């Protein structure tokens, strides 16, 4: 039982960590906020001055902002869809007693350990390359013209690459959830006349609901800031077709050296991420409660 005394002691003990974390967060955040109200371009040193809401107005009315926002949502949604559906399927597969189970599990988990830049490079050069890539080779084998994924379907390609590296995470979480399903429940459903599909829909899927929410929550946090895969493969292009918010902020800051504008973009991204987080935490909270 938590007495008043243990609570006070606990607070006291935790305070250094909390203060450290707070400082860690507050200092960069307030600096970003400060910069976002400045006219501050690295190409014109010495001209810094208070800019009011100008940076925000500039960022929010930029047509690139809206396509970046749409791209961010499409990217996050697409990866979530692929990883959750794929994760459930892989989980079901790996839950079976199959020959060489240990090795198969390691193979499935492996992509998670490949760095984003590396996996993006591998996909770009070895799979999606219209001349030397594996997909081009397969297309030619069947007599089709090779498809230049990164030029014609840039966002889709990035989605696939990111989904590939997040699939193991989803699979792992969902597999452990599957393994915790009481086998007597499945047997009871079987005796009640449910076939494999009904067992999946009425027993397995509801059991997985929590795990799926956890996967969605954690992945969303990371997917809102996908960057390396875009930088390595498409550079946000063609045009703004594969530019998400993170990449837009980057291109503001480092391609046009506009620190003020980039900071404003960063703050907007933080606000958007928080809106998403509030929604998610509500849904998750509801799902995790019962």
């Amino acid at each position: 039982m938590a007495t008043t005394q243990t609570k006070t002691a606990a607070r006291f003990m935790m305070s250094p960590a909390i203060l450290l974390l707070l400082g860690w967060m507050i200092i960069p955040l307030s600096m970003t906020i400060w910069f976002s109200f400045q006219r501050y371009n690295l190409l014109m040193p010495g001209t810094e001055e208070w800019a009011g809401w100008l940076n925000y107005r500039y960022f929010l009315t930029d047509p690139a902002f809206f396509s970046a926002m749409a791209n961010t949502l499409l990217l996050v949604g697409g990866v979530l869809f692929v990883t959750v559906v794929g994760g459930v399927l892989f989980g079901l597969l790996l839950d079976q007693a199959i020959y060489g189970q240990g090795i198969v599990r390691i193979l499935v988990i492996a992509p998670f350990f490949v760095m984003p830049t590396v996996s993006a490079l591998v996909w770009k050069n070895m799979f999606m390359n219209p001349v030397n890539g594996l997909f081009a080779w397969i297309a030619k084998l069947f007599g089709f013209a090779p498809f230049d994924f990164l030029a014609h379907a840039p966002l889709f390609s990035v989605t696939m690459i990111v989904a590939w590296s997040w699939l193991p995470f989803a699979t792992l979480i969902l597999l452990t959830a599957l393994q915790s399903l009481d086998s007597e429940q499945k047997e009871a459903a079987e005796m009640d006349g449910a076939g494999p599909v009904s067992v999946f829909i009425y027993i397995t899927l509801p059991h997985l609901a929590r795990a799926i929410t956890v996967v969605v929550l954690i992945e969303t946090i990371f997917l809102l800031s996908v960057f390396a895969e875009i930088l390595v493969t498409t550079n946000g292009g063609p045009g703004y077709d594969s530019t998400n918010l993170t990449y837009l902020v980057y291109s503001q800051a480092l391609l046009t050296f506009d620190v003020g504008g980039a900071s404003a973009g960063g703050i907007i991204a933080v606000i958007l991420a928080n809106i998403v987080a509030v929604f998610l935490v509500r849904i998750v909270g509801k799902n995790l409660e019962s």
Partner: protein
Amino acid sequence: MGHITLKNVSKAFGETVVIPGLDLEINEGEFVVFVGPSGCGKSTLLRLIAGLEDISGGAINIAGQDMTNVGPAKRGLSMVFQSYALYPHMSVRKNIAFPLKMAGESQEVIDKKIADASRVLNLTDYLDRKPGQLSGGQRQRVAIGRAIVRSPQAFLFDEPLSNLDAALRVNMRLEISELHQQLKTTMIYVTHDQVEAMTMADKIVVLHAGRVEQVGSPLELYHKPQNRFVAGFIGSPAMNFFEGDLAKEYDCHAIGVRPEHLRLSTDEGKWEGTVGIAEHLGSDTFVHIDVPGQHSVLVRVPGDIAVKYGDKVFMTPDADTMHRFDGKGLHL
């Protein structure tokens, strides 16, 4: 209808043979209890009948049809699991409705059957709760409700009361017996508690290491055990066995006398011993007596008796109720 026949049914998990080959006849409407020590294969046998495990050999016949290779859903049996196996995300109503929904019944029929079942089982007030919000006994009743709405050929129960406290267990025991009287459906009930077996069964099947030791009515098993295992397993407290010289006198390897069939006296009797612990239950007294060269002997004395630790006492067996066993443990 509801008649189940097992012919030479055997089961092995890989190398381990759990049931070496077993014949059993279960009649329509009978309440059959499988009883035996832990690990003797009761659950396995029940799961074989249910179709949840494949049998390694032999045949299972239910209601006149060969069901050996038929899936669990098509055998027309309902099972109540030890863990109840309720679906945690569904309300009580949906839990009970699940088998009907799977069978494609119309909503009208489902509503009616749920109403009937919940009235019989006193669940009407809980229909909209989730299983997590119910007590153990209520969960048990939901599991039974889910089993009865299908009107099965037979019910299978696997230790359904082992998660309940003692008082509730006695209650549920009565309720299940009551239900059997109302429905008149065949029931197969697994337990390791011989009191449950004695009180509920029409027919008890005593299992030991996957083999049937004896089949019979509770009193048959009590009065005429075919071997030493059944004699020691059925009856509470358990039968006393005497070996060596005491048994030789009766021309056998061992004699068995139930605690209630030994007469205790402080001044004269056939066998002599010293009093160990005496357990006073009010209605009875269980006296543990040390007899030289024997295991501790338990005597059940009605009411109270004035003996204390270390007293010398005498016991006399009742010749009519004494059981004699040969070297192989068979009843003579």
